[in-house]
Each structure stands twice: as structure tokens, then as C-alpha cells.
């Protein structure tokens, strides 16, 4: 095996690991990564989200990989190119190939006082933690630098509650990316947020106060700005110190000199990302770094890829303002023409740079609304697809994007983050059968980084003739959401009425349970009433879960997993008396297996009498709300997680939904209840509750995303109420919350707008729907036992109600009954080399 050593585990270093591992089918390379920071790669582009409720874990990019030896906190100290050895404080590593991915460091101008306490840089999570710690109890902050990073840092200070100054040497904000007029528009947005902007002035000194920490800044225009803390964000410089010391060639302005293949001046030594100077030029953006990582991975596998050159286009949301710059944004081409559009009312500024004959798009700047960015960026270098003003008007750009996309040549990049061309996407649609955006993402990686090209992926699917049918089945041309609205608006009360009005045929095992669920959501009541009984899957029909041999399992509700000894004894007695196999579930309750249909009412009579009710394990409905033991017992707990879990489980019990719903509550950040793997998970904080949504285990495990922080119990419950009802109303059949959120245009932000900011004016309706559910909830099993007609369904044979099904038999495994297989290819007993123990055998 050949040894690959990578120095650095930033975003680009991580991308290189993934690219190598993805291509190294033959297991040719062992990978060792030497990382300076104590934590694995994280998303530095989204760093300021750290102050907006995201945790370090949310930003993590690294997934553990047995084929990668990741050595955290072990920076490379020196490299011996002749012997091919990298030395660290802990050891020495021989390499067959070496890649520098050391990134860059913040540039701090040599002004007096730059080392005072209270002066920070903005680069790593450690920097951010130090900033957060220092900001406690302080009031005024200043950022030196009004570029991209400086505005990010200003936003961080604002989120920390400081009144903020930004000091920029150039005459406008973001001088590298945008022009004078765009900078002026951006400044209006930024000042409206309470940030004080000083442009055209440098910082000459940082001055200490009586406590020795920074207290004021002296500016070159003579002004003095008071500040309790300062962040320096005046640019970055490549980390090339180890490479220089080893004797590698460096670029004229620093950076490890590489050619188009990523190779440095030494054999088998490469550099990627911000530390590399490609033909002398360093790039401070992640997309060119990713492209370099892909090139080097290809070269390591014996390929012949070369760096295609960098697209420095960027689209950002800075302090909530869309800013984009693409192509020749500053109009440096000879004779080029500018077309600009400024609307002070809506605060939109847009500029297109055109060739001297006004026929070819060269670049542009967008501030305030960057909807048109994906299509415009992809159109750089091509003939204009519409008159410039049509392209510039924000709505026009979007409307025309489809036509523009059709005109693009196959070699045009649709996803610049991952260098995916239109050809690659079209090929994935036709040759690999990708029929939706998630399939295209998985297949091509397009849209997986910044996501701005996702609308283009959708348009490409349409242009290539992929129609995504919404039809539920052959009986309805509608999606579940549309059927929900039809039933609600026309107040339809039965399946037969709905299919007569909106469908055809007699229905099937797909549409009938969907409609049963919709009817249950809108007209609360017994789910087996009248015609509704014929719509239900067998699980809902017998209020139990069918198993492989035709018997059922029974799960009584144990809210929050909290149970008294008396109730536990009843479950044990019932299981013993009916010879039921007993197992603890993953949701902190107890599942009793092997009940025949005619036994179900007898079992439930005993359970209901003991105070149990249906656990809805059989339904597409709320299952459980797990909990850790919380502050009542746990020495670390900060809130009563059990109390909240019980209350939530009782509130949402019986709620029918497009798919099962799971939840959990953890009493502190240690997260013992695994709440982030749930559809809605709650984690206690010192100040209340953090709510996470869209997690699940299963086939494609997914962590839930942080939705809201430090909520009071009342706010939390109201938010979950709305989340659940909105999900029930608008999700597709069998669509878990994660896929549903992904399918919403605007995703999590849109969801937040709807249920927190009430952007659709729906919240009162959602609240009322949940109130109706809670008022009308009744235990289905108690309701069944009370009614002889309902009970009459629970017979083995219509003409021999008490005869047990003769096909059902059990054997004993580990002391409990299990089904005897009726087929030759059935299950075999597990042999573990232990003596078999059967019931009644002597101990």
C-alpha cells in the first residue's frame, strides 16, 4: 500500500480525503492526515452560524472513516523532501505522496496595540469561542476590515449583542467583490441593522484602557472609536511556512507554487486550497480549492486532470442581505459596457457587464436580490439570452432562467462549487435515470455545497422532459397535499364521496390508507367508524402490528418511558398469561408479540383496566417521546426532560400523520435521549429548550436541524403544534419530516417563516387544528372494548369465532415463544455453541 500524507484538515483537505477515498477502489492508498486544530474539518464558510444557534457539531464536515488515520492536534513541524518524511511533535511519517492543505492565516496589520487583550482574529472555531467568552458583559465592538470576512465578523458581534463598528480602508464595503454603487446599497442595509460603517479610513493604533485591555481605536481620519473588543479581519495570507522551510518554491506574493496539476516544485508533493499559488495566484474561496482537491485526487490515481481555472463568482447572504458578484464584475475588459438597475425603494442594485457590442455577458454585481444569480453566472461568456433589462429585473431573471438554461452549451458549469457541467447533469438524467433533485445531488454532487444551483437542477429536469408526476396512484391524479386540501375545503367526509368527486375506480392499498389518515386528521373520531374501517391497513384495522406469521404485537403507551412498578407487573402478567414474546423497544416501551386477532380484545381489556391506552405503534402517527432522566435525578440535567416528554406524548398521542412521528427530550447537552435522531427533538438549555426538526434513523439516518433556541415551554409547545399540523397538511404520502422539509421551496428558512413569523397567515388555523385534536382525543382501544359491534371484528373465523388459526404455532427460543416457520427457507435457530434450554427442562 502507498502512503498518502495530507497536512491540514480544513474544508479543502477534507474534500481531498473524500475524493481520494471515493476513487481509490483498489485500496491503493493509506491516508494519514496531520491536523493542527483539535477538531476535525468544519464548514468555515458558515462560521458565523455558530453565533446563530448552531453548535460546533452542526458545522462538522468530517465523517469517521476506518481507512483514514486522522491525527488531530498534531501539526506538521517539518518536511524532509529527500527522505520523504514529515515530522510532528509526536512522530515521523513516511510518504509516497504528500499534499499541503494548510490553508491560510489571518493577516493582522502592524499597528500599535495589535496584541492587546481584547483583540481577536476570525478564523477558527477556537477564535469564535474566545470571542464569545470575551464578549460577555461588553457593549461595543469594532471590526477592522469591511470585506466579506469583516462583515461576517460584524454580524457575529451583532448577534452577541454588541453595538458594532466596521472600519474599511477602501472607499466602500466589499471592495473586492462589488462596485461603488453596489457598496453604497449594501451600506444602507448594514447601517439599518445598527452597524456603524467607517469607509476610506485606516486604523493607526489600538489603545489600552486602565485595565490594560483594548479600549479605543485611532483612525487615520483623526476619529477615535470606543470599543471593548476588536476583531481584525483584514485579509488572509497563505500558510506556507513549513513548505518554505522544506525548500519548496513559493509564489511572488507567498503561497506554495504549484502548476495546473497541483504539483509543487518537488516530486510527488502537491498543494491545494488557500496555501497553494496556482501559477503564482492564491485563491481565497472554497470552490477553486475543491476543484484543486479533485485534480490532485485524480492525479494520485494516475489520471491526467488539470485545474480548469478559478471561477471567482460568489453569492452570499451577509447580515441577511443577498450579495453576488460574478465574472468580470468590475468591468476590466476593454470597451465593455455597464447596464445598471437601481431601485432605492426595494433596495435592489444590479449591474451587468457586457462586451463592447453589447451581445455577450461578461459579469455583474447583484445586491439585495440575487435570485437571478445562478442563471446569470452560468451565462457568463455567452450571448445574452434576453434584453439586458429583462435579465436585470429580479423577477425577469428568474422567469427567463429556463430559456437561458436551454441556450447554455453543455460545457457550462451549472454548479461552480463542485465544477459540475450541464453535460454531466443531462447525462445523469438520461444515462443514469436521475429523476429528481435528490438523485442528481447523489449522482453528480451538484447542489450539495452552497445550493444556489438547485433551482437550475429542477429546470434542467423539466427541460430534459422529466415530468415528476404528483399522482398518488391510478385512482387519483392528486398528491396527498392536494387531496388534503380538497377534503378540507369541500368538507368531504368519506372515501366514496372523495373518489366520486376527484378520482376514479375503487381505490387501492395506496390511496385508501392515505385518505383514512386525512379524514382522521380533519374529522377527529373513531378511525374504524363506518366506511372508514374498509380503508385501513390491517394494523389500523386491528389496532395492532401484524407480524410475519399473521399474529399481532401489542404496544401499550408508556409516556416518556416512565412507568410504575404496578403497571410493569400488569404487562408482565398479561404477557405470561397469553404466552406473548416480550421485548423492550427502541422507544422506551414494551412490545408483546404473538397475539392472535381473537386474543386482542382480551389482552386489551386487562391493559385498559390497569390504566393503559393504545400506544399507536400500528399507526402512521405519533409513536413515542423518549426521554433521559433529566434534572429530577441526573446530576448534569438542567431541565425536567421526563416531565416535558410525558406532557408532549400525551398532547400528541393519536395524531395521524403522513408517516410515523418520533420524538425525544434530552435534559442537557449530553443528549442521552438521542433527540437529534427524531422528527422533533428537544434538548434542554440553561435558559429553556432548543428545538431540532427533521431527524430520523432508518435507511437514511439523518440528524435533525436546529430550528429554534432557548424557547420557554409555552413557546416550544406552540412551535411543535404548528410544525406537526403543517407537516400533516402538506407532506406527501410516507414522507418523513426530513424529506418534507427538504422538499419545501426555501427549506428550513421557509418553514421558520411559516410557523414562527406566520408568513402565510396560517398559524391561527394550525393552532386551532391542534386544539381540536387534543380536545377530541379518545383512546381507540377503550372505544373498541365499549362497543359489541366493534368487537365483532376480532374473530379468527366468521363461522368459528373461537377456533384459533390452526396454522399458527410457536417454538421456544431463549425461553420465549417465537413463530415456527411454515416455509423451508424460513428462519433457522441461532446456534452459539451454548446448550439449548427448553421450557421445563431441568436447570
Amino acid at each position, binding site marked *: 500500500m502507498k502512503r498518502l500524507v495530507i497536512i491540514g484538515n480544513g474544508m479543502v483537505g477534507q474534500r481531498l480525503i473524500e475524493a481520494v477515498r471515493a476513487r481509490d477502489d483498489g485500496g491503493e492508498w493509506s491516508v494519514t492526515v496531520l491536523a493542527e486544530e483539535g477538531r476535525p474539518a468544519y464548514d468555515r464558510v458558515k462560521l458565523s452560524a455558530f453565533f446563530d444557534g448552531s453548535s460546533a457539531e452542526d458545522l462538522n464536515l468530517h465523517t469517521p472513516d476506518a481507512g483514514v488515520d486522522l491525527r488531530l492536534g498534531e501539526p506538521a513541524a517539518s518536511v524532509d523532501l529527500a527522505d520523504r518524511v514529515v515530522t510532528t511533535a509526536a512522530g515521523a511519517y513516511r510518504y509516497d505522496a504528500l499534499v499541503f492543505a494548510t490553508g491560510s492565516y489571518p493577516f493582522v496589520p502592524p499597528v500599535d496595540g495589535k496584541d492587546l487583550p481584547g483583540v481577536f482574529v476570525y478564523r477558527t472555531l477556537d477564535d469564535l469561542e474566545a470571542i464569545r467568552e470575551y464578549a460577555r458583559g461588553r457593549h461595543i465592538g469594532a471590526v477592522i476590515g469591511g470585506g466579506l470576512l469583516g462583515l461576517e465578523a460584524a454580524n457575529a458581534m451583532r448577534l452577541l449583542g454588541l453595538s458594532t463598528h466596521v472600519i474599511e480602508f477602501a472607499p466602500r464595503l466589499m471592495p473586492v467583490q462589488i462596485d461603488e454603487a453596489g457598496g453604497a446599497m449594501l451600506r444602507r442595509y448594514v447601517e439599518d441593522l445598527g452597524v456603524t460603517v467607517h469607509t476610506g479610513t485606516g486604523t493607526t493604533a489600538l489603545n489600552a484602557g486602565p485595565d490594560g485591555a483594548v479600549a479605543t481605536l485611532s483612525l487615520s481620519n483623526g476619529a477615535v472609536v470606543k470599543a471593548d473588543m476588536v476583531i481584525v479581519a483584514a485579509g488572509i495570507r497563505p500558510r506556507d511556512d513549513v513548505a518554505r522551510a522544506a525548500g519548496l518554491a513559493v509564489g511572488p506574493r507567498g503561497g506554495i507554487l504549484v502548476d495546473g496539476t497541483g504539483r509543487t516544485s518537488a516530486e510527488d508533493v502537491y498543494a491545494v486550497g488557500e496555501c497553494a499559488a496556482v501559477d503564482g495566484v492564491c485563491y481565497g474561496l472554497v470552490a477553486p480549492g475543491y476543484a484543486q482537491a479533485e485534480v490532485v485526487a485524480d492525479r494520485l490515481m494516475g489520471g491526467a486532470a488539470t485545474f480548469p481555472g478559478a471561477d471567482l463568482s460568489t453569492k452570499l447572504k451577509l447580515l441577511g442581505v443577498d450579495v453576488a458578484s460574478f465574472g468580470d464584475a468590475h468591468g476590466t475588459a476593454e470597451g465593455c459596457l455597464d447596464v445598471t438597475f437601481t431601485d432605492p425603494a426595494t433596495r435592489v442594485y444590479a449591474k451587468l457587464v457586457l462586451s463592447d457590442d453589447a451581445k455577450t455577458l461578461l459579469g455583474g454585481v447583484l445586491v439585495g436580490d440575487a435570485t437571478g444569480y445562478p442563471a446569470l453566472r452560468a451565462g457568463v461568456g455567452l450571448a445574452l439570452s434576453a434584453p439586458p433589462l429583462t435579465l436585470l429585473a429580479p423577477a425577469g431573471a428568474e422567469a427567463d432562467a429556463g430559456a437561458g438554461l436551454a441556450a447554455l452549451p453543455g460545457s457550462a458549469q451549472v454548479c461552480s462549487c463542485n465544477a459540475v457541467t450541464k453535460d454531466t447533469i443531462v447525462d445523469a438524467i438520461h444515462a443514469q435515470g436521475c429523476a429528481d433533485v435528490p438523485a442528481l445531488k447523489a449522482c453528480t454532487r451538484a447542489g450539495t455545497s452552497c445550493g444556489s444551483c438547485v433551482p437550475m437542477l429542477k429546470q434542467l429536469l423539466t427541460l430534459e422532459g422529466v415530468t415528476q408526476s404528483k399522482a398518488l396512484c391510478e385512482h387519483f391524479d392528486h398528491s396527498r397535499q392536494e387531496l388534503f386540501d380538497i377534503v378540507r375545503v369541500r368538507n368531504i367526509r368519506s372515501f366514496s364521496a372523495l373518489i366520486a368527486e376527484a378520482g376514479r375506480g375503487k381505490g387501492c392499498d395506496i390511496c385508501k390508507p392515505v385518505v383514512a389518515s386525512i379524514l382522521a386528521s380533519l374529522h377527529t373520531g373513531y378511525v374504524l367508524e363506518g366506511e372508514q374501517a374498509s380503508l385501513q391497513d390491517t394494523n389500523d384495522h386491528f389496532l395492532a402490528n401484524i407480524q410475519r406469521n399473521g399474529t399481532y404485537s401489542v404496544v401499550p403507551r408508556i409516556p416518556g418511558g416512565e412507568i410504575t412498578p404496578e403497571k410493569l407487573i400488569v404487562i408482565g402478567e398479561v404477557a405470561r398469561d397469553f404466552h406473548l414474546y416480550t421485548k423492550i423497544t427502541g422507544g422506551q416501551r414494551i412490545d408483546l408479540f404473538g397475539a392472535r386477532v381473537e386474543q386482542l380484545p382480551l389482552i386489551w381489556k386487562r391493559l385498559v383496566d390497569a390504566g393503559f391506552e393504545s400506544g399507536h405503534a400500528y399507526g402512521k402517527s405519533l409513536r413515542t417521546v423518549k426521554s433521559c432522566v433529566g434534572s429530577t435525578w441526573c446530576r448534569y440535567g438542567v431541565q425536567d426532560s421526563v416531565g416535558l416528554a410525558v406532557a408532549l406524548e400525551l398532547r400528541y398521542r393519536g395524531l395521524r400523520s403522513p408517516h410515523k412521528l418520533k420524538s425525544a427530550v434530552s435534559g442537557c447537552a449530553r443528549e442521552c435521549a438521542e433527540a437529534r435522531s427524531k422528527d422533533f427533538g428537544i434538548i434542554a438549555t440553561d435558559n429553556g429548550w432548543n428545538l431540532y426538526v427533521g431527524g430520523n434513523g432508518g435507511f437514511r439516518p439523518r440528524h435533525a436541524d436546529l430550528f429554534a433556541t432557548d424557547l420557554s415551554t409555552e413557546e416550544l409547545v406552540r412551535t411543535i403544534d404548528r410544525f406537526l399540523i403543517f407537516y400533516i397538511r402538506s407532506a406527501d404520502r410516507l414522507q418523513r419530516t426530513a424529506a418534507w422539509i427538504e422538499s419545501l421551496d426555501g427549506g428550513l428558512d421557509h418553514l421558520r417563516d411559516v410557523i414562527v413569523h406566520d408568513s402565510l397567515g396560517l398559524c391561527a388555523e394550525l393552532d386551532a387544528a391542534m386544539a381540536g385534536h387534543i380536545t377530541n382525543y379518545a383512546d381507540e382501544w377503550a372505544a373498541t372494548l365499549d362497543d359489541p359491534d366493534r368487537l365483532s371484528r376480532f374473530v379468527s373465523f*366468521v363461522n368459528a369465532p373461537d377456533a384459533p388459526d390452526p396454522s399458527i404455532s410457536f417454538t421456544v427460543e431463549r425461553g420465549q415463544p417465537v413463530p415456527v416457520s*411454515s416455509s423451508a427457507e424460513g428462519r433457522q435457530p441461532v446456534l452459539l455453541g451454548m446448550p439449548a434450554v427448553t421450557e421445563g427442562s431441568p436447570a
Partner: protein
Amino acid sequence: MIIDVAFQPVCPLDRLEPDRGVAALVNGVQIALFRTSDGELFAVGNRDPISHAYVMSRGIVGSRADVPTVASPLHKQVYDLRTGTCLDVADVSLPVYPVRVSEDSVVEVAVE
């Protein structure tokens, strides 16, 4: 249809809910009996040929094009109620049995 097998009474017609099945034990054979919403009766074997469990009577009744159907409650394969043919898996079928309603509204099935 076989004519020399006697029809045997199973249950009153009103014991069958529209578009829902019941299981019956006739001559030791497990039958799944269905009454569709337009009043037709069907009798097929209760054994699911794929899972081998006796569960067909608990499947959801519906239609595919013009064919009246039942879906296995375990893995949802769909069968033609008239012929027993599985519409999703080749060479799989359910046995079908003659079924009728007597003059006094009792459902009768003929099983060999």
C-alpha cells in the same frame, strides 16, 4: 365450475362489511371471503402464497383498471379477486372458490 361439490353455509350476508374481508373455516380449509362495495362476493384462499401466513382476508380491497383486487396485508402484492392471479408477481396465485348467496341471505361457499 365444479358442480358436484356441495355449497356450505358460512355466515349471514350482513356479517360482511363492504370492501372488507373475513376468514372462514370450511371443511378444514381457510377461505378469505370478500364483499365489494358494489355487492359482488368473492372467495379465495386465505393463505398468502408469498409469506405463507394465513392473512389474505385482512387485505385492502380495491381495483386495478377494471379488475377487483385484494392486496396482501404483509407485503402488498395485489391479486385479482375473480381469478386469484397475482398481478405483481408471475406464476403466483390464490385458489378461488365458488360463492353465492342463498334465498335467506346466507353466504355459501363450495370447497372440495
